[in-house]
């Protein structure tokens, strides 16, 4: 069984009965290997479709969790359970819970790094005081507004006032968390929260895929919230220096806020400053200063000086990219794609109204970004298979469009691998209109292909 990956969370969904005899069958050796190497924030097992489980049944997954934690720093645990199942798991493992429990997958998303689900008002209750605090801290680090209540009665009472919060969290337990660096988006800046001792593990904890994706899609200001950092060693110093060099390629700025140097050599500060990293005492020094924000590049998403051009390697593999997009849309719409024209040019979009777009980056042996631009009608049709109904809910359509472009990315990865070209794909991004897309890719040259599905036109654009 392979997990489904969405918004940085990989989820297994076993069905039926979980006991000691069968759980090994859910996870073959290849499945375990593939899961360990996933670059995700969390790996969870959904108990939504499980009618019966015992401790032996869960133990197999817990062994997987231990293996995962040895190799990468993803949060691991179970989700989608009712109160009865929650009580059973707590009883099985009592004080020996090294994994997390999220009542629903939606709640788990709040704890993962993603462009979505930012700044939500979250009502929290746990009978365990330290859990209440831990949940609140994690949510705060991820850019949410936690509202902690002290008693079950108060929670029940506040839960009635649905307009005062976006999510309510109870029956949730955080095991070992905070291994991945919390990320949040504020306007056009991305804020990473780092803490404690920064050493060689920073390169595992930092989601480089997310960072590359953010650079690719136009973010230019990255702030490290370092108030809680105690010290850093030379490995972390090297990591940040390299990060600064790669950011320079995109003309991006990296800042540290609240970093103290009483336990870190002052010379490190100089090295970091030499590599282009800026230091500020307070977060408000940056976010509250519009002039400075503009200067740092956070006011414009398209502040790219070092634009790269489409190279021969990309052109040679172009049919595979087009094929991946066309075949996926054909699959989702049960219709046939016809290529109408293809040329190397700046992106030209006729009739910009009522169009949505999505993009996905790839990096590795080759790098670049695929952009798909749909009239809303085709986007809706292409997403019908994923949504299950015809809907006008734009948030749902864009969410599904991200899944669709993720499938396209997966197909590109497979097709290129057949040729021995190894690439990874970034997280997908969607754009609710053409204007927001153009802000990111304005004046970049690329290959534009006009495709037609049953007479409906959609655009494929490949750029670097």
């Amino acid at each position, binding site marked *: 069984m392979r997990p489904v*990956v969405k918004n940085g969370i990989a989820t297994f969904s076993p069905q039926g009965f979980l006991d000691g005899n069968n759980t090994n069958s859910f996870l073959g050796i290849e499945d375990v290997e593939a899961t360990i190497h996933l670059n995700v924030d969390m790996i969870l097992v959904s108990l939504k*479709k499980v*009618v*019966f489980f015992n401790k032996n049944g869960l133990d197999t997954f817990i062994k997987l969790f231990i293996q995962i934690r040895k190799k990468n720093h993803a949060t691991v645990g179970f989700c989608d359970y009712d109160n009865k199942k929650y009580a059973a798991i707590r009883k099985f493992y009592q004080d020996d819970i090294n994994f997390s429990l999220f009542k629903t997958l939606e709640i788990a998303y709040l704890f993962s790094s993603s462009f979505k689900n930012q700044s939500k008002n979250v009502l929290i209750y746990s009978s365990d005081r330290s859990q209440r605090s831990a949940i609140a801290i994690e949510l705060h680090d991820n850019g949410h507004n936690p509202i902690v209540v002290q008693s079950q009665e108060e929670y029940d009472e506040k839960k009635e006032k649905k307009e005062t919060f976006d999510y309510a969290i109870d029956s949730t337990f955080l095991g070992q968390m905070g291994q991945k660096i919390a990320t949040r988006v504020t306007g056009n800046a991305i804020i990473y929260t780092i803490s404690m001792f920064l050493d060689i593990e920073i390169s595992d904890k930092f989601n480089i895929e997310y960072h590359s994706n953010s650079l690719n899609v136009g973010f230019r200001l990255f702030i490290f919230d370092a108030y809680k950092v105690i010290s850093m060693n030379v490995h972390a110093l090297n990591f940040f220096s390299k990060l600064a060099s790669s950011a320079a390629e995109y003309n991006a700025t990296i800042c540290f806020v609240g970093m103290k140097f009483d336990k870190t050599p002052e010379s490190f500060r100089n090295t970091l400053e030499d590599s282009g990293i800026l230091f500020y005492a307070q977060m408000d020094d940056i976010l509250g200063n519009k002039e400075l924000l503009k200067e740092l590049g956070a006011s414009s998403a398209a502040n790219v000086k070092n634009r790269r051009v489409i190279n021969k390697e990309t052109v040679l593999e172009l049919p595979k990219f087009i094929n991946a997009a066309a075949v996926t849309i054909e699959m989702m719409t049960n219709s046939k794609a016809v290529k109408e024209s293809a040329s190397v040019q700046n992106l030209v979009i006729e009739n910009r109204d009522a169009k949505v777009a999505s993009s996905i980056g790839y990096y590795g042996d080759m790098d670049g970004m695929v952009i798909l631009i749909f009239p809303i009608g085709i986007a809706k049709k292409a997403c019908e298979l994923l949504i299950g109904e015809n809907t006008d809910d734009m948030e749902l359509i864009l969410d599904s469009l991200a899944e669709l472009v993720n*499938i396209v990315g997966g197909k590109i990865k497979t097709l290129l691998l057949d040729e021995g070209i190894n690439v990874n794909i970034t997280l997908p991004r969607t754009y609710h209109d053409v204007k927001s897309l153009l802000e990111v890719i304005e004046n970049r040259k690329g290959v534009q292909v006009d495709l037609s599905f049953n007479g409906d036109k959609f655009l494929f654009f490949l750029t670097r």
Partner: protein
Amino acid sequence: MITKNEIDSFIEKIPPAPNALKETMRLLSAGELIRAAKIAEGDLALKSYLKHIVNKPIYGFKNEVSDISQIFGILGVSLSQQSVHNYMVTLLSPKKWTLFKLNSKLFYELQANLSKKWEIILNNLGIDDKNIYASISLLPASILVTEALFAQKKDDINLLRTTKALDYNTVLFRLCGVTLFDICEMIAKKWEMDDSISQIVQAASGVKHSSDENINNLGKWMHLLLFYELSKPQFIEAGLNDFVDFQVEYVGDIYDDFALLMGIQ
């Protein structure tokens, strides 16, 4: 990915039930076990199948049973009819399984397990109706239909399922407006099975509930039984655990009785 035309073409290619089978069924229906056995003896594939199934450990016979009249005699009318129905469904089996890691032996084992446990359930519910006994035989047809329709689309489906956990039934319904169980119903019609058989199997899908309370109740038991079997290691490894969605809420009210009956602790 899958079009309505492909489904129509699949249904069209299903051969009608052979005459010998029809005659065996007719005689079994009339309670004429010996005459039915004589006809069945003439169909070597049916004879071999029945021997294979009945001698599985789950049937619990100490000595090998090889004579068809003996088999029908031991099973009685309802279970004999159910076994012949099971055989009819195997006629849809592919020569080589591609989508699921199955083979005929494993598929027969699933049929035998479902049939035997369905008998236990019906005994417990105090039901003695030959069509209700036979209904379990149509359930595994949903697996055969999935294999037939999706075998060539394995890569597409795998790609789709890396992003969204959609079961085959949902994918088929969203693409073509019919479910795997609708196709099972079409097969049942083609083979002139009793309507009640397909109604129970439709209810057992867990997504198309029946307005008839009794059929719905049987559908719940069958739905839970299916997932009880599909939670066995060999069927999980075959890739059957998530081919259709398990509807936990649907079976909530009968779960405790089921667990007691199957000795689940």
